[in-house]
């Protein structure tokens, strides 16, 4: 094997470990080592899906898949206008066309009528090796065609990256429209690409801090609909809801524990905002912090063993960590004079938060073990970061054109993209867990 590296290619190239194939033969096989190619989005062609005669599907499936893949920051779909041919069946595919265009992968598919809905079939090709990596079909109702496209995008993404996709997950957020007396606030749930928004609560008073349950079926939130803050848990499918905290003073920042049995929250019923945990089964309330400073915005570690929260006990808002059963808190945000709204990545190795840098509030990623910080967003009033369930992206709210919109940042440097098409002010997005 002939080694090489970016650091000292010549030196390492002179080292010559040889692989010999025959025991008695001196035949050596050359092996050239290459490291450090340019990291970039991978070229992929998603061909507009064919349709059976006379069928006009309500959605452009290939376009949805392309957008989903592009949003991950890891793929660069070929624009339709650059496609030389548009095959929709295996017989029409000539992979050499796509090699010439420099595509690593090719996706073709068809939408056909089945019963009252559709059957969507698709194939993923490895252009250079000529293999079919995935060939499958999904049955979809007419209304669920968008969701079906998201699911196909997730299948392709997982096949190519080995990581589960999040195109078919959802997001919850709060919108505001109108002014003062006529102001209407709504709590909405939409697809991860911002489409297909559904209002689950509408109120003339503020709605805050939506939080998903682990199974993605319920959302906890703070509503001031009775002129004072109260925490509710609402079931998405039925709309049924339950009042879980309505103490004097602040009732805020609910957060489901990973096991789904507890709800962390901020209460000021004892005079000062402190972190409490409510056992949802026994209704037992436990106070975790006891400090004259403000303690708020609790978030669970993925293993459920610790809770991070925002506190100004050191003079400025910073992130602290304590055991989920309470006890001493350790500061984990080490840079900057303002760090808040922290939440863990699904793998527990990093934390996203809002930090103030040069007077601007931006989304950042910190590594609590190494104490490093990396900025993800580039706005000035960015808020409420929330990890995608696969940890590859962070959704947050940012100011654009004088109003709040949603944006997604790819953790691995794929850039930031705005999502929302809502006309209203949009804030406090939170990403759902995987929907099974």
């Amino acid at each position, binding site marked *: 094997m002939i080694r090489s590296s970016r650091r000292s290619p010549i030196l390492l190239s002179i080292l*010559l470990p040889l692989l010999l194939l025959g025991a008695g033969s001196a035949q*050596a096989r050359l*092996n050239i080592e*290459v490291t450090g190619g340019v*990291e970039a989005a991978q070229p992929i062609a998603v061909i507009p899906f064919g349709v059976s005669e006379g069928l006009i599907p309500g959605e452009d499936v290939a376009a949805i898949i392309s957008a989903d893949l592009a949003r991950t920051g890891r793929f660069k779909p070929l624009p339709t206008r650059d496609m030389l041919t548009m095959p929709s069946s295996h017989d029409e595919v*000539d992979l050499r066309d796509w090699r010439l265009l420099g595509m690593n992968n090719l996706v073709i598919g068809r939408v056909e009528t089945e019963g009252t809905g559709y059957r969507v079939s698709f194939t993923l090709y490895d252009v250079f090796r000529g293999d079919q990596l995935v060939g499958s079909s999904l049955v979809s109702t007419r209304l669920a065609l968008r969701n079906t496209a998201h699911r196909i995008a997730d299948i392709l993404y997982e096949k190519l990256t080995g990581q589960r996709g999040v195109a078919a997950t959802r997001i919850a957020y709060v919108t505001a429209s109108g002014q003062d007396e006529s102001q209407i606030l709504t709590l909405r749930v939409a697809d991860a690409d911002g489409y297909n928004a559904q209002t689950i609560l509408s109120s003339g008073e503020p709605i805050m801090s939506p939080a998903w349950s682990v199974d993605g079926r319920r959302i906890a939130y703070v509503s001031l609909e009775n002129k004072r803050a109260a925490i509710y848990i609402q079931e998405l499918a039925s709309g049924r809801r339950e009042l879980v905290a309505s103490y004097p003073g602040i009732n805020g920042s609910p957060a489901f524990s990973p096991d789904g049995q507890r709800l962390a929250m901020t209460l000021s019923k004892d005079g000062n905002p402190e972190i409490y945990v409510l056992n949802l089964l026994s209704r037992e309330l436990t106070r975790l912090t006891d400090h004259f400073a403000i303690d708020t915005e609790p978030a669970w570690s993925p293993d459920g063993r610790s809770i991070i929260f925002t506190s100004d006990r050191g003079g400025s808002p910073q992130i602290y960590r304590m055991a989920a059963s309470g006890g001493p808190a350790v500061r984990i945000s080490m840079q900057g004079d303002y760090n808040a709204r922290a939440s863990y990545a699904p793998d527990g190795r990093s934390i996203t938060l809002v930090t103030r840098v040069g007077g601007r509030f931006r989304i950042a990623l910190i590594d609590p073990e190494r104490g490093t910080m990396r900025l993800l967003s580039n706005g000035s009033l960015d808020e409420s970061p929330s990890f995608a369930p696969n940890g590859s992206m962070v959704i947050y709210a940012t100011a654009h054109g004088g109003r709040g919109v949603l944006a997604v940042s790819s953790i691995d440097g*794929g850039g930031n993209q705005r999502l929302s098409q809502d006309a209203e002010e949009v804030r406090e997005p939170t990403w759902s867990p995987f929907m099974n």
Partner: protein
Amino acid sequence: MWQILRHNPGAFYWSLGLHVLFALLLFVGIRFERSVTEAGGQARAVQATIVSDRALEQMVAGLIDEPIELITETPAEEPTEAQPDPTPGVDESEEQTRRAAEAIRLETERLAEAEAEAERLAAEQARLEAERQAAEEARLEAERLAAEQARLEAERLAAEQARLEAERLAAEQARLEAERQAAAEAARLAEQRRREAERRAAEQARLEAERQAAEQARLEAERRAAEQARLEAERRAAEQARLEAERLAAEQARLEAERQAAAEAARLAELRRLEAERQAAEQARLEAERQAAEQARLEAERQAAEQARLEAERQAEAERQRRLEAEAELLAAMEEERLAAELARAQQEQAARERAAEQRARHGADEAQRTLESDPRSELEAEQISYLTERYVPAIRDRVRQVWVQPMAVDRNRTTVVSIQLLPGGTVVPDSVRVVRSSGNTAFDQSVVAAIYRASPFQVPTGQLFERYFRDFDFTFKP
């Protein structure tokens, strides 16, 4: 004038004389005036003289009509002038004339006497008058001179004073003028500066306004241009999409057929070329392939034998273990402790054997390397490889690295090994790139394969070195 002199010299001389006279009169002009003034004094002096003579007094009373001014005339002329004067006065009538003639006769006699007396008095008076006049003249002259001098002095002083005054005034005026001018100049300058400042401010304001206007215009123009460009781009994109769709709909089948035919032809040509090349290289390559096949066969046999041996060993060991377990069970009551220890030892030994076998298999390369180093033939090979490494490998590696676009966020520990085959000249044989060891990440593997094809052709040596090392070799890719 010259003509006047020539034709009438007398007139000229008269003129000249008059000029001189006038000049003289001009020079003594003041005296002339004075003499008029003094004339009164002279007349009084004459009267004083006359009072002393009674006859003369009578005569003077008779001649009262005669003008006193005549006395101022030259004394010699006085009688001649006085005589004709009464004549017209007695011509009033013949009666009067006759009486007058009687009177004149008498009077003439009386007058003769008086005349003599008058002549004597006149002579006396003339002499006195001349003396008096001379004295008077001298005195006047002195006085005149003194007066003149005084006047000149006064004039000089006055002139001097006037000059000084004038100079002072002039200086004063000049100073005032200068001051005024300076003040005016200062005011003017201040005014100018103020105006200049105002003008500059105005200019700056104007420029600023113009700049802002220009900026705004520019921004507006840019915005419009961008908007237009965007609209144009959208329009073009829409148009292009429409055209593309139409074209595709109308001609896709035909184009596809044509393209496929062309591609097929190209592919066949390529295949023929490859075949030709392959045949040209066949002679050398057959040997290599034979060796490779032989090696592969040997390796397979060796591996099979090894595997069989390991399997046999494993089975034997399992059998032995089962046997030991059975024995252990049988002898449990009696020798439980001892057997347990033995069993443990036996297991440890077996594990060690297995590890050794594994290590042998895994480090076959290292052993071979050692073998190679001790082999005299290997020295030549080491030289060859050293040469290759410096001459060809870095270029190939850099070429691949340049075109390798790896996926983001791939685990650093992942490695993909691919084998490739080259044609003489360095072109990658189509479909020859095989993933020998996958990284487990499909996108990463794909990026590696794509990079090899993109990098083709490689710069490789020819002849023996190519056949020996570059006909068929491996790449190891790490993120």
